[in-house]
């Protein structure tokens, strides 16, 4: 049965399942290694500064994408920042309903030029406002794994 014959029922077209069977082992990179180690070991969020472009990258980069300088100045930024945008997710990656809606926000940390995307919790979606102050909540030290999820989520300040 070809494309020019009208197929009323897609089950009439024979098909089989297959996959591309690969998995991946990622490295954090030179910048990522230090960024994640600081979060895990010291609960600190670091960025890198390009003095020429007056830009603080969080997550940090070893180069400035704007002027291509090698960045060597690491600066701590605040755990607090402001909400630049947010969404409330109701479905997962497969399109299935989530047990609880989940809020994701773009957060500009004080001292950083770029922003970070992370979960926003401990607040009702209807109460979220643009520019509201939020802060990082770290997992307990023993539970941190050197992952971006060592910051469990952000929550409103106060």
């Amino acid at each position: 049965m070809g494309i020019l014959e009208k197929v009323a029922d897609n089950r009439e077209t024979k098909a089989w399942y297959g996959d591309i069977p690969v998995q991946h082992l990622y490295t954090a990179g030179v910048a990522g290694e230090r960024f994640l180690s600081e979060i895990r070991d010291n609960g600190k969020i670091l960025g890198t500064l390009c003095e020429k472009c007056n830009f603080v990258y969080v997550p940090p980069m070893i180069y400035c994408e704007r002027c291509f300088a090698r960045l060597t100045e690491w600066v701590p930024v605040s755990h607090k920042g402001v909400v630049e945008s947010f969404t409330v997710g109701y479905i997962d990656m497969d399109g299935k309903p989530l047990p609880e809606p989940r809020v994701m926000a773009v957060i500009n940390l004080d001292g950083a030029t770029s922003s970070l995307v992370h979960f926003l919790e401990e607040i009702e979606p209807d109460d979220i406002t643009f520019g509201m102050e939020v802060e990082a909540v770290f997992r307990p030290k023993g539970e941190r794994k050197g992952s971006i999820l060592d910051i469990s989520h952000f929550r409103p300040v106060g």
Partner: protein
Amino acid sequence: MGYRKVAVVGAGMTKFVRRSLETGKELSFEASHMALESCQLTLDQIQSVVFGSAPDAFDGVHMKGEYISDGAGAFRKPYMRSYVGGGTGVFTPIQGWWHVASGMFDTCLVVCEEKMSPCQPHPQGAFLTIFDHTTERPLGPNLLWIFALEMNRYMHRHGITEQDIAQVAVKNKKNALDHPCAQIGREVSIDDVMNSEVLAWPVKRLDISPVSDGACAIVLASEEVAKRITDKPVWFEGVGWNLETAYWTNRDLYYPKQVEYAARMAYEMAGIREPRKEINIVEPYDPFDYKELHHLEGLLLCDKGKAPELTRSGVTARNGDMPVCPSGGLLGVGNPIAAAGLMKICELFWQLRGEAGKRQVPGSPRRGLAQAWGDLMQVGTVVVLGR
């Protein structure tokens, strides 16, 4: 034809390693930064960027061209990624060439990156789905099998032995000892190659290049700009590329026709009538040792079936009449797919400028050729550079 002269004016590369801490972005930055520093340009003097990388499944990032773009210096610039499988590393500089030759841009940064180590359990797995899912995938083929079929056909057609072919691995791995970026430069003997693990007969462990992470970059400039940047520009003299049938079983595997067509295209553009006399250094694609021989024949640099003799008599040694893979090739320097092809262009750049250090071939070579091969075992890509 109405295109402008284009020169390579700078080059850079990272070490090739089995697993880098650096991300693909960071590898690309290191190579690009070195290439720009080598010709004392800054990113704001680069008008366009082209990027080459093989399957997204290696790095494990879909749309990795876009993902890596900032590491390749493409922030807010005209940017394109190309991908023709293993042929990418010599195709991407061709893409860069037409950016400048066309008159659209005076400068172009060409970056090729590959980070193969993420792909688990082996990058080989990413290739299963290049085969026809109806007639070939059910057989569970892998690339080694295909190469083995081709190598065996080549050996059979010309009466070439495994030992003849092993000479290439011996030569290239030794050449790589002099390359500061090389992953597996070492002294091996023909016996070592013969006694190494059989992977898919006649292909053995030491017949093949390794899995690698790495990046390379070159800077291209139009004639007028190139002459302001350097007094040693290396010119594009010819480019060629050609695609064979996607059905690798529809052709005789003993000879790479697509490489010949790509070479003829490049020779015609360069005005080369007698390539054997007019090409001084060759960097053919050598992911497997027999491929160097196969490709030398496809490039018309020797008669069919005669490449092993050239190797045996020392013609292709670094101090021979026609040095082949003086860099150490993929067999010695390593094989981060797209970056490995561009490494060959970098090698020609350094050799033609007399800057290849311990690897420098004698006699002030005037012209060199780099070639890569890939897609579904079907593409030939060729660049001829001269000074």
